[in-house]
């Protein structure tokens, strides 16, 4: 009989084991190194104001990365997040300009809360299209979201004729002020965008670690056939993760256009790749089933703090691109070394 078992490595389940810390620590240590190096190189780096500025920049990528994490945990990929971000921003912008209703001869100026809700719904719907394409029509995720990426970008360009909406501040006469709040206000010194990111991250963490849906997601990403036979509604899970990813892209789109007080159809180009990079640096497996919110957040901060640091120290933006690429490959390299050591763990 061959029933003896060796002491198994602890998995990333509940509880704070040392191993888990070390596992996720990789991105954490990288972050510490980045902060230390740039603080040494530039006196302006290690300041509260700089950290808050950097954090509000990270918020955009962080929101996209949370959605991307959900999709990647499911074993998929979502290339459309950058385009959905732009489309949502443009839709928000258009609503802020006022909706003209010809039949009545009036221009409606929806209040900001309605603009936000409509934009989120549109983002979620576009995400749901991704989900239905992948789950029910069996289009490979890469292809489906690639197509939606082009379509969403194209629609955003069509809506604006390629131009940018600039008057997003609203006016007190029309009762639609407040759009800037999301991007430029602070609560206790912390930018709202960072609080939005923190809120979304905590909700995502709770969902992944403490709800049935989270368990379904990890299971169907790890082995969809086994999950299905265990009664997991795998198609529902799939549609839901793409929908959530679309909705989070819309949140990011609102935050970005609020930060800039303008909304352009070319915003967020290649952001999907940055989001994927954040998830990968955070230790998630592109094959699905492995990854955490904490890791992904660290990944997003590694990328954000690295590029901000390179800007502050005056490194050319071309070199920034090279460094970011190097970090991504290094992170994945460490992933494969780690799984290689762990033996045949599928």
């Amino acid at each position: 009989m061959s029933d003896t078992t060796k002491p198994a490595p602890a998995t990333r389940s509940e509880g704070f084991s040392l191993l888990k810390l070390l596992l996720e620590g990789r991105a954490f240590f990288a972050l510490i190194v980045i902060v230390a190096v740039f603080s040494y190189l530039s006196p302006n780096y290690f300041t509260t104001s700089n950290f808050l500025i950097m954090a509000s920049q990270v918020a955009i990528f962080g929101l996209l990365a949370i959605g991307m994490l959900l999709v990647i945990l499911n074993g998929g990929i979502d290339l459309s997040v950058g385009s959905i971000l732009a489309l949502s921003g443009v839709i928000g912008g258009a609503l802020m300009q006022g909706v003209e209703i010809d039949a009545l001869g009036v221009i409606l100026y929806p209040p900001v809360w309605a603009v936000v809700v409509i934009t989120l719904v549109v983002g979620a719907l576009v995400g749901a299209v991704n989900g239905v394409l992948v789950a029910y029509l069996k289009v490979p995720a890469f292809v489906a979201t690639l197509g939606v990426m082009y379509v969403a970008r194209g629609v955003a360009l069509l809506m604006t004729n390629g131009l940018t909406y600039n008057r997003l501040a609203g006016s007190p006469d029309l009762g639609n002020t407040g759009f800037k709040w999301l991007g430029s206000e602070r609560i206790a010194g912390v930018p709202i965008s960072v609080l939005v990111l923190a809120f979304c991250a905590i909700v995502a963490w709770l969902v992944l670690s403490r709800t049935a849906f989270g368990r379904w997601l990890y299971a169907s990403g790890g082995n969809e056939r086994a999950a299905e036979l265990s009664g997991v509604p795998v198609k529902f899970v799939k549609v839901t993760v793409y929908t959530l990813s679309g909705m989070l892209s819309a949140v990011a789109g609102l935050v970005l256009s609020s930060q800039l007080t303008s909304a352009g159809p070319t915003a967020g180009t290649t952001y999907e790749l940055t989001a994927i990079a954040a998830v990968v640096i955070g230790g998630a497996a592109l094959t699905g089933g492995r990854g955490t919110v904490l890791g992904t957040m660290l990944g997003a901060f590694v990328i954000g703090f690295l590029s901000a640091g390179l800007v502050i120290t005056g490194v050319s933006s071309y070199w920034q691109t090279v460094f970011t690429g190097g970090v991504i490959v290094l992170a994945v390299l460490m992933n494969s070394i780690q799984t290689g050591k762990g033996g045949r763990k599928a």
Partner: protein
Amino acid sequence: MSTETAKFDTAEVVLAARNVAKSYGAVHALKGVNFDIHRGQVTTLFGENGAGKSTLMKILSGVIQPSSGEIILDGQPVHFQNSTHARDLGISIIHQELSLAPNLSVRDNIFMGREIKGPLGVDFAEEERQARKLMQDLEQDIDPLTPVEDLRLGQQQIVEIARALSVDSRILIMDEPTSALSATEVEVLFKVINDLTTKGVSIVYISHHLEEALLITDHAVVLRDGAMTAWAPRADIDLNWIVRNMVGENYNLGAPPDGYEFGQTALAVKNMVVPDPGGNAYNVVDNLSLEVKAGEVVCIYGLMGAGRSELMETLAGRLHAASGRIELKGEEISHLSIAQRIARGLALVPEDRQRDGLVQTMSVGQNLSLASITAFTRGLFTSRRAEKALIADSIKRVTVKTSGPDAAIGSLSGGNQQKVVIGKMMATNPQVILLDEPSRGIDIGAKAEVFRLLAEGAKRGLAVVYTTSEVSECLSIAHRIIVMHKGRITAEFGADATKEMIMAASGEQHAA
């Protein structure tokens, strides 16, 4: 086709394994095996699923490396780097699983990786000529330019055999070469084997069809649980000898549980028809009806392709029937989803536990609780305490040997992994449990434990339906044995059936 044995005793050993062991993590697939292959003779390796036959053959053909022990070729120790190295030394293998590229033609598959080079690249004309010759030798009417995916499974196996023959090897290993062949194809294969041995080629043969293997073998070697249990020349053995050594003297999978009355009908299948999921124009389950009572253990016996797995998957909800009814305790369930069927008390333990049973990225505990998440969800959130209790209960109930609920699922042995899959479905408190080949690839001790578990469940009123392709497993805990052949029930026996009766009803004597 049996040959006299006198001259063989002196035949020299061309390839030998000495104390060869192989472990995968905690799983010891081989535990120090000695194995001789004699020049120009057929050596047959007998053993149950998971006995280590395929592992040994993979080692002898360089596909995998042994953890310890040595291989001796022509009296010299040799270390195969890979299967190409072994092939260059004259050893080739026909794998149990087909290793053909379905999109390529027969010709391209036969010469894959060692294409015949001409002045203008690959000499396709010469390849085609040789492929045609091979097909003639094997008495097959297969055009070498046909894509392999257009061939029947049996014909694909012929191509696999042709590829091994095309190498002119000195030692040819055949791992279950006849599993998909028809009776006439098997006859041709045996003729080819005879030709080869007279030319001095040594053959290692593995088959589940014991009688068939006895027709051509010169030596028999029996493996059990990764160790060699017996060795003898053909003249000294018979079918009983093989079975006795394969399963062990005091091998006991239990008896049908008794001392209680069956309850109401738990599961009823009425005139169920399931079309081939691959889209072919035949039915994998053909107008099948079946009733199982609470507390009853039913065994479905059938060969590969008999439709057992498709029947199970349709009952569980993965496949859909074209017509017919499935009733669980009188309620029609064929329109329900897998999850709804589980919730109503119907659970399936699938055949391929790696592909369909386990989530490799999750821990032992998370795998055990996967099918009953709602049972420990309180409002929005899962309750860690309730989940822990459920997992601890499952581990105890199905006696999983693990270092703890957080252990990686891959750290368990095959038998314990299977118990996790069973435990996962048992945790849903089913009234009917379906098990597709529950004993596949697990050792005998674990097998006995699995059957004991099922018998205990039956005593508590669980209706148990399991499939198997090993007759010995039918004659264990089953109250009733149903034989399936080509999607239909061909016979039904009580617990007092004999092996011969069951095998006759399954169409096995035709090697179909």
